[in-house]
């Protein structure tokens, strides 16, 4: 393994998350947690005109869960819930090691988490934000 387990993308999103803040205009929120490690985030979305107009997350967690949630919000803000669901499915596919190179490009910076599949203990951290998103979209429908 390299000197640095975490690449620059993850480190940057962890140290300087764009979307770690409250969202006063949120129309829906959902809390997700990893009971085994104590990571917990709450995802906030502002739905307007059938799209995810804005989003944020609050809470605490490891670099993997924090960076993954931040990257996810970069990807889904401005998209429809349907598009967000498809991205979540693609992310799961990547974690499962079944993604094609073309699909990987769609995930943009989230591709930095591709190798997490090799660390089963951290998969839950990487998917925490995405799982919370899926629950939120389900209940918001």
């Amino acid at each position, binding site marked *: *393994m*390299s*000197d*640095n*387990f*975490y690449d620059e993308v993850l*480190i*940057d999103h*962890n*140290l300087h998350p764009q979307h770690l803040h409250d969202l006063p205009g949120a129309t829906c929120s959902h809390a997700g947690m990893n009971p*085994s*490690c*104590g*990571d917990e985030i709450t995802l906030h979305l502002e739905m307007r005109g059938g799209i995810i107009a804005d989003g944020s997350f609050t809470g*605490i*967690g*490891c*670099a*993997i869960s924090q960076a993954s949630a931040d990257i996810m919000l970069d990807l889904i803000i401005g998209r429809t819930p349907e598009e967000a669901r498809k991205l979540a499915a693609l992310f799961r596919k990547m974690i499962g090691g079944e993604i094609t190179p073309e699909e990987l490009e769609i995930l943009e910076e989230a591709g930095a988490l591709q190798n997490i599949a090799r*660390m089963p203990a*951290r998969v839950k*951290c990487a998917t925490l934000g995405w799982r919370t998103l899926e629950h939120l979209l389900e209940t918001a429908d």
Partner: protein
Amino acid sequence: MQQNWKADFPVFAQFPDMVYLDSAATSQKPAAVIAAEAAYYREANANPLRGLYDLSVRATDAYENAREAVRGFIGAASAREIVFTRNATESLNLIAYSWGRSELHSGDEILVAISEHHSNMLPWQSLARETGAALHYLECDSSGVYTEEALRAALTPNTKIFAIAQISNVFGRISAIADFARICHENGTLIVCDGAQSVPHIPVNVQALDVDFLAFSGHKMFAPMGIGVLYGKEALLRKMPPFLYGGEMIEYVTREGAEYAELPHKFEAGTVNVGGAVGLHAAIDYVNAVGFAEIVRREDALTAFAVQEMRQIPHVTIIGGDDPAAHHGIVTFAVDGVHPHDIAAIFDSDSIAIRAGHHCAQPLHQHIGVSSTARMSLAFYNDEQDVEKFVDTLKTVRRRMGFER
């Protein structure tokens, strides 16, 4: 520090570059233990305690010799006081189910040390819920110290049992169990001691401590996984009903009921783990051959070295204070701005195994105000190079997470 004890442990030959600092979670196994368990299955395996033939007698002897070895190891008065279980968790559950459900009633109180591992906390929570007994916690200070005054103040005429570990799996601090036992007994309170982190590392004598129950796991003391011990004073065990029902724990059975077997078989229903017990016997022989003088000397020296180095590293906080003498082979720590899971991942990328999380002690982490921590834990087979590598990596953690660039 000259002797290379790692040579006794095949896993270190398999992974020569690995630094194993997670012995509080489970210890590595010496070749002597692995060989003893294998030899049992090759040479003496039969269902013990029932077969009327030579091989079964051998299996029975192997099992009962292991029990006698455990008795001697912890200084119990009689082998009838040694019950084999799967691990410390099962031993503690056995007490809560058997003693607890027959002796406790609404109005009684259970006292549990706040730093206990979940396995010495959840059985008591469950027992309190089912019997209507009240559950109270004994609080420690931020260094993990429990005082006699605090214990005296927490005991009431209704306190029936007090549960505490001899060595905390988070702080590594030794509690004064013999003093606590005396105070409990003056109050008519029983004391349950979790010895999972102490029995492998310091000499433990149940009669000197005068504890009513002691629980520990084989796998943390160089024995195989799946074998553990419950020590209980004979008078208490005798009164307790069985925990599990089945074969091997009865004298005779009728349509209406059964006459239960003598101690300790009353608590060992079903076919027992003879291979594990034989492995535990070999582990005890191994520990005795190395000697606690050597084990304690090495572990204390390595712990002191680690703490002295760690407290000089900026942004590193040792949970339970900077006094090396307070940590017995266990040093739990935090690094400012870095989640413990990320700390462990960085250590792993340098082939160093440490633990991260709440170490099965969530209420303690709430009590001391941190959500989770990282923990390095030693055994006598570790050496100075292991600690040096650990310290070298610890110094790089913040930089590798993007701080101070």
